[in-house]
């Protein structure tokens, strides 16, 4: 019995002598390639999903209300950086949280990637990176949208690196938050969770108002200081409309780095909990 077995094995080995040796990083990019392929194919739908909300906010608050005289003329300039931040953070959050809940509980789709030759933590990081890429696309689309709707957007060329830095950090902090939510919230609670988290996140993130202007509304200022979106909004505002009072960029930068790191660890921990039993 064992003799025939070893014969079989050696015979097959001579047919094909080398195993495909993919590195974990190679597998990481293959998995990322799958997500880029799927997102790319559904790009118009994806853009509609992520851009419509900020677009309408921009249109109603930045254009309609100012034209009707209910908002000051400069309000659009204050609003625009905040809405770019909102697009980045929310798209990141939704791009990790929703798919994770579905892939872990209903379709089990993620299993094929969990069985790929890369550490499970890297599968989680891939999810975060992909979500951040989607977030950057949706935030990037806000710029032409802003130019069309508002007829021009605030821009200080020398601050462009700051804008890029805060866009990336905003995309990452949103994705990390989504990773943590998507893995910790039970699948049957995800709808409630989004109602309880998304709406407050949307309105306490200093997107629609500069944070320092809340000084006469101290309690709300404290509440908004807890929301990572605040620091993305303020960071972008500082870079794009430096004349408007804003939180110092280095504070925003530090808070966002810490928040992204913390949320990522939490999210990866949650991902492990879901992926391994």
């Amino acid at each position, binding site marked *: 019995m064992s003799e025939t077995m070893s014969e079989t094995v050696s015979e097959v080995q001579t047919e094909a002598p080398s195993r*495909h040796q993919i590195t974990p990083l190679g597998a990481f990019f*293959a998995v990322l390639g799958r997500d880029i392929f799927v997102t790319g194919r559904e790009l118009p739908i994806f853009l509609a999903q992520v851009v419509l909300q900020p677009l309408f906010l921009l249109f109603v608050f930045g254009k309609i209300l100012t034209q009707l005289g209910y908002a000051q003329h400069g309000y659009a300039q204050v609003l625009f950086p905040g809405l770019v931040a909102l697009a980045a953070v929310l798209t990141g959050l939704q791009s990790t949280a929703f798919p994770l809940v579905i892939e872990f509980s209903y*379709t089990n789709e993620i*299993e094929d990637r969990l069985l790929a030759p890369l550490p499970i933590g890297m599968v989680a990081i891939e999810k975060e990176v992909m979500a951040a890429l989607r977030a950057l696309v949706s935030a990037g689309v806000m710029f032409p949208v802003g130019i069309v709707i508002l007829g021009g957007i605030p821009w200080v060329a020398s601050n462009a690196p700051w804008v890029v830095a805060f866009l990336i950090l905003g995309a990452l902090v949103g994705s990390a938050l989504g990773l943590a939510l998507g893995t910790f919230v039970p699948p049957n609670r995800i709808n409630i969770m989004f109602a309880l988290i998304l709406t407050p996140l949307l309105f306490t993130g200093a997107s629609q108002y500069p944070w320092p202007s809340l000084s006469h509304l101290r309690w709300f200022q404290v509440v908004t200081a807890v929301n990572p979106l605040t620091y993305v909004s303020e960071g972008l505002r500082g870079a794009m409309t430096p004349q408007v009072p804003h939180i110092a960029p280095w504070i925003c930068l530090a808070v966002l780095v810490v928040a992204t790191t913390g949320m990522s660890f939490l999210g990866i921990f949650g991902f492990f909990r879901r992926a391994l039993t």
Partner: protein
Amino acid sequence: MGCMAPERVSPSPNGAGPAVEVADLRKRYPKGKVDAVAGISFAVEPGEVFGLLGPNGAGKTTTVGILTTRVRPTSGTARVGGVDVMADPVAARRLLAVVPQRNNLDRSLSVKQNLLFHAAYHGVPRAERRERAEVLLGQFGLADRADEKPAMFSGGQSQRMMIARALMHAPEVLFLDEPSTGLDPAARLFVWDRVRELQAAGTTIVLTTHDMDEAAALADRVGIMDRGELLALDTPKALIQQLPGERTLDVSVNLNNGASTEAVSAALSRLAGVERVEDVPTPGGPPGAPPVVAGPGDAPATGPRHFRLYVAGEASSLVSPVVQALQSLGATLDGVNLGEPTLEDVFIHLTGRALR
């Protein structure tokens, strides 16, 4: 249907060692009151088809979960292709493939893309993965639906897709978790045929099943599991042979208006090697159906009667003593049937319960 042999692309790291090795493996889930896997050990040789047979909840899927790096064992070791799955799960995942119970196909991708991306995750070069995908799609009867999304596929088609996908990276060990549960008979036979082809090509296969026919039909060796424990492990034939006194000899007897059923039953019971005798109600009643134990009295003493003899040794050697015993009662032997016990009987013997 050609042979779908995946190319064996490398020797396992330990060369001649077992393809799968499990030692004192134990798993208790965080909220579990008992061990889902209660300290089992076994080894699967390269090229072997190994079946884990047991009812639902026996610990089969947990065992496969540990071997495929998705479940962390509480204690013990598990190796695939010589690789410790806990110490180096990434290396283990290069060597193995899993066909799970539940459909986990990528619904955003077409059938063919499912295969191609799976191969990409495993580093199969582009040209080779296209080639392999074409071959496997053909072998699994999916070529004409290659560009469709798998969401609307039947259970059998999804199962075929998942097996084809698993073979894309030419695994050394293929894990099939309940491969034909929920499939219609034709789809089931299709899966069985593919498993046999893989076996012929030398792929090591570990399959779990609660279907004794499937275990007997496919597995070189069967491990019988119940309540987390491995109760027996051998070839299906040896398992059945080890059953004490569970060979059967069914005899049809013409009583010739003479002997009573009790007298015949008593005479047959007295024969050396017969452990007990049952009066079987219907002629050639369904195999495996519980025979009615002969009761005293009211059975008609005419016409053919059927008895099942439970025998300790070789059943065939009892034919001649049976003939003699019947003659001495004035009855004659109409026919004999040597009953083959099944793995189901082995399971009942080991656990006192039926499999299904």
